[in-house]
């Protein structure tokens, strides 16, 4: 055993030096435990928001709620698990026992938002509480004001049922009354029961695996290795931040509205200050908190989203061959300022279940703010929204609601050397869609269109990504709820690239009952035969379109990403409409004239 070098922060566990090989062994083991927890959950869970969207976060925390490892299923949960534990400790510290299973979703005590319910199992070793195995996932309904959504809720009591550090099991014994209370107050009791059981199974798995690790390597070595890995992640991030010139960088954007006060846009303001090997993200200037559920829980959502944006920019997974774990170390060089009472740090008891659009837009602003100093790492403005559309209805036969939530994908702006990505989840979102053939088989819905949105890509040296169009018909009477945004604001182009296009939500498109819907819908009643159509934003282009390779423009024309009649106007590329070949000479002439025109 190595010599002690002090104590692990906040514990009485000795910190020892760990040899480089054991560090690798334990680093791999940490990663695997969290991954296994995620796998157990999403392969046995019931609701599609868990099993397909993988809207979940899993990991092991120490006794103070510092995260040792996490599953990395969803960027929304980058570093979110520990916040729940810290919230629970405010109520239960000193009153936690072996065999307890604690359920928690309080957004003012660390939860990501009320639908993301976390199951927390304390881990005891030789009689002492050493940590927690914890996993959260989005339950499709938590007794919200509307099925699965609650946009117009004025406070958290109107928004959902609150589970504030409740012991579902106490010392191994199920609290049946609590269990009934939970299930009696949601629209989807069967699904929630099975999903909560799956969460418990996944958390039990994490506990078992972590204890095996401690048995094998010893408490001090395991926790000391965890410290080393936090220091490592911190070092890796600091190295990258230090490469970017010091300075103050700013970007901002506007969200549509709060869902009730239509036409009143809400500002998102990000100011990044780089100072040596650390940085500050200042959200001052962003909108004040609102009187709907369109606020962002600070610990559970604002902070993890900033973690993700920073990870994206400075430690891009595709550019780093080493695995850099998401842990507390990555938070150390990043200082966050989010004024209390702002939309990113609301006061109790403001409702806050609809927070995704705000954090996604914030992430996009962080990316764009740093474009001048990190041009090879950023994209032009991306979709940076989601439409979370909840379809529901009452199943008379079963006597329960059916509730189905769908995350609409977006797109990425053009990138250095690469076109933007089409029809894909963007930034903080990274979910999987549900097969159409699954949806139609099990729900009274029919999908009638699912393809690339019928728009041109934003022009640029590297074009913007295009969003999606998806159209669904109700076969029985039902309800639509939606948490969306970006119906008015287009993703901006970068370095001379063109702007993208906003999103839309339309009821019964192409009929005489066509009706434009707002981006946020609490509960809109649909009749059998009614159709909802969503189009997600297309993203901005990157760089001067006159510099785009004419052959790529030709390919865009052949693939309908650029219309033939616009190739010359947008790109200065002349294409013969009959032979479908680039007229090289004419193109050179047009481009030269255009550049001249621009210069004079």
């Amino acid at each position, binding site marked *: 055993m190595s010599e002690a070098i002090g104590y692990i922060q906040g514990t009485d566990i000795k910190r020892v030096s760990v040899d480089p090989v054991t560090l690798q*062994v334990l680093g791999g083991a940490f990663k695997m435990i969290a991954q*296994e927890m995620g796998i157990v959950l999403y392969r046995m*869970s019931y609701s599609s928001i868990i099993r397909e969207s993988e809207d979940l976060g899993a990991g092991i925390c120490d006794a103070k709620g510092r995260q040792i490892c996490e599953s990395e299923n969803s960027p929304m949960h980058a570093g979110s698990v520990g916040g729940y534990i810290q919230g629970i400790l405010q109520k239960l510290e000193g009153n936690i026992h072996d065999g307890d299973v604690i359920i928690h979703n309080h957004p003012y005590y660390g939860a990501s938002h009320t639908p993301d319910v976390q199951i927390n199992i304390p881990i005891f070793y030789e009689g002492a509480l050493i940590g927690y195995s914890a996993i959260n996932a989005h339950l499709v309904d938590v007794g919200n004001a509307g099925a699965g959504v609650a946009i117009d809720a004025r406070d958290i009591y109107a928004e959902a049922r609150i589970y504030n550090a409740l012991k579902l099991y106490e010392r191994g014994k199920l609290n049946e009354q609590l269990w009934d209370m939970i299930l009696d107050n949601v629209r989807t009791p069967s699904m929630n029961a099975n999903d909560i059981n799956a969460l418990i*199974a996944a958390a039990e*798995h994490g506990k078992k695996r972590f204890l095996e690790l401690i048995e094998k390597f010893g408490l001090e070595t395991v926790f000391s290795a965890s410290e080393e890995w936090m220091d490592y992640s911190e070092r890796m991030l600091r190295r990258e931040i230090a490469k970017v010139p010091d300075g103050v960088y700013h970007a901002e954007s506007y969200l549509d509205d709060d869902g009730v006060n239509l036409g009143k846009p809400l500002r998102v303001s990000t100011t990044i200050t780089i100072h040596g090997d650390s940085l500050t993200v200042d959200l001052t200037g962003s909108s004040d908190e609102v009187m709907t559920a369109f606020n962002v829980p600070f610990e559970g959502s604002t902070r993890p989203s900033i973690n993700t944006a920073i990870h994206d920019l400075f430690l891009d*997974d*595709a550019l780093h061959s080493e695995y850099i774990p998401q842990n507390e170390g990555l938070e150390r060089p990043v200082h966050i300022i989010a004024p209390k009472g702002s939309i990113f740090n609301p006061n109790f008891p403001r409702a806050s279940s609809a927070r995704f659009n705000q954090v996604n837009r914030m992430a996009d602003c962080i990316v764009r703010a740093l474009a001048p100093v990190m041009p090879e790492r950023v994209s032009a403005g991306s979709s940076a929204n989601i439409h979370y559309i909840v379809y529901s209805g009452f199943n008379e036969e079963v006597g329960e609601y059916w509730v189905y939530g769908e995350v609409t994908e977006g797109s990425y702006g053009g990138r250095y050397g690469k076109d933007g990505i089409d029809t894909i989840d963007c930034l903080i979102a990274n979910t*999987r869609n549900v097969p159409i053939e*699954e949806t139609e088989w099990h729900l009274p819905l029919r999908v009638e269109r699912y393809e*690339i949105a019928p728009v041109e890509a934003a022009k640029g040296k590297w074009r913007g990504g295009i969003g999606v169009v998806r159209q669904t018909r109700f076969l029985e009477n039902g309800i639509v709820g939606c948490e969306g945004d970006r119906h008015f604001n287009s993703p901006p182009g970068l370095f001379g690239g063109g702007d993208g296009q906003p999103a839309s939500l339309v009821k019964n498109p192409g009929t005489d009952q066509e009706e434009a819907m707002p981006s946020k819908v609490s509960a809109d009643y649909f009749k059998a035969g009614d159709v909802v159509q969503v189009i997600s934003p297309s993203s901005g282009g990157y760089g001067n379109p006159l510099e785009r390779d004419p052959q790529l423009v030709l390919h865009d024309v052949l693939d309908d990403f650029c219309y033939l009649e616009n190739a010359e106007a947008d790109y200065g590329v002349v294409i013969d409409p009959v032979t479908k070949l680039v007229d090289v000479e004419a193109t050179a002439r047009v481009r030269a004239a255009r550049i001249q025109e621009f210069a004079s």
Partner: protein
Amino acid sequence: MKRIGVDVGGTFTDLIYVDGDTFAVYKTSTTPHDPSEGVMEGINQLCSIVGAEREQIDEVFHGTTIATNMVLERKGARVGLLTTEGFRDLLHIARHKRPYNFSIMQDIPWQSNPVVLRRDRHVVKERVTAPNGEVLTPLDKEAARQAVRKMRADGVEAIAVCFLFSFLNPTHEEEVLDIIKEEFPEAYVSLRSVVSPQFREYESFTTTSLNSYVGPKTASYIENLEKMLKNSGYSSATLHLMQSGGGVATGKAAAAKPVHLLMSGPAAGVQGAIWASKLTDHSHIISLDIGGTSADIAVIPNLKPGMRHLLDTQVGGYSAMVPMIDIATIGAGGGSVAYMDDGGFFRVGPRSAGAVPGPACYNRGGMEPTVTDANIVLGRLGTELLGGRMTIRPDLSRQVIEDKLAVRLGQSVEESSLGIIEIMNTNMIQAIEKESIRRGLDPRDFALFACGGAGALHACSVARELGIRQVIVPASPGALCAVGLVATDLLYDFSKTEMQLSTKPDIARLAKDFALLEQEAKTRLQEDKVKEEQMSLQRIAECRYLGQGYELRVPVEQGEITEQTFQAITTVFHRTHLEFFGKDYQDTPVEIVNIRVEGIGEMPKLEAATIPAGSEDPSEAYKYSRDIIFKLDGKIDTYSSKVYDRSKLKAGHQIQGPAIIDQMDTTLLVEPNCVATVNPYGIILITIQ
């Protein structure tokens, strides 16, 4: 019966000849421009070596990467897709999830290199729906005809026809096929309802499109090879090809569904491991195949390989929803590079030095320490490789480990070398744990089957860490794929999406659907001239709890389908779910999602050759002794270790570790506190104490 197995790898083409208990192996260089050249050259050579008449060869079994390479190198045919109006871009949208969570600069392979370009994706009005395949919108035949004409005019080479829910009602796809036959008869065509008749449109459309993508060239390769065999005098030889699911198909069947060939290489290796393990007492094995750049891991309980999960059946970033043996590949091999990363951590792999420049000791300009270099420094690898064809420079190994690692770690070269091995082993141990635990299996119940060039060098440590008691090393660890080829039965997989609930069983429908698939399987086997008594059919149901999203495979008993069949499926499913996830839900209805029938045509069994018997004393195989470095109980020490020649070992010989057993294509390390025993078939069993 005279059989030849030919496995074409990246560098070498391995061949095996079997006739009764006569075995012969041969190795030749792969001819990448046209692999059939190397194949024919090898077959001809092998026949003349063993003195076999060409017209007496009965079977040629072939493992080929031709389809796989086409996908990885993006060199397939130009494919046109005809699909349901409103759904032009399902191949482009995929599951709308990014491969990496934290990355702006990542590549999206299905968009940057689409299997079908958007310009070649055509839509027509038609629509079928669940649950009974009802036609909502009839096919617009005229539009389909125009689209086929357009594809032909545009220079499309192969067509995929993919309509939503066509697995419930293939009529529209069949009507399009008739139109293609009239308008574009020379096109290679894949119908979704034939190639991939299962729900989940993105995966199924991609599978069908990939089939057309690799179809024309694979079909002509197979046709050409059959022709060459006939023209070279192999008049009675039948050609069979290895498929990803672990069985072989005839040339004709493989040419129609080449998408089933995509992962056939590793599948052959697993078949070889299973065959060799049957010559031991072990029925639960984990195979560990360590090569130069990667290691393949397969967990094989009851000597029956698992099938890969739907979310993992990918090739080159594209989903291929076909049965694939569950093999995990990690970036850990002899060429894996050891280095200190930017954050000061000691790392091994996944980057590899490859064959060029290779490990430092190869003296081909490699300037970074590799796992092979560490094995050299520790004395575990000798200084002559490939039977003396390659000379090794241990001084170069020492030098790079010293310069790049030991100095920075403040360690001796030996300690750093041991560190490299330990981290390398850890990567494999954790992958094995993940592979077994995610299937609810405990590695301690298994034997470790070591193969590939470096498997037997690392197996003892890996086994010990996992609590595994015995390591199996086959007679020719390098030729295992070729062995697997000749040891495999014919296997055809037919599937159908069923969607039935255990609580509302439609017995007649399940019976009818199984009968249909069984008929397809039988017809297929009859076309291959398989006799009735060599035929067997295996029914499988892929089930989940109602409301879940992913299925587990459940074997279904033969005989008449009755209420009991449903009960049996439900019972087995509950048990399987419990094994996989530690939990079952007895009160929740079970949904039978897909059903499958595997048609198996039994091939004559491959007999094993025995080796001469000896006493326990292996002195007759002793070559010399050399120093090997081990870390025992935390202490690094040098142990004088005996080196044996495997070709001189006899059945019954026992070797006490530490020792080395040398053979042409691999080195076995018997670690301290381990005993190796040679069995009658020349297989070495190492017991870990």
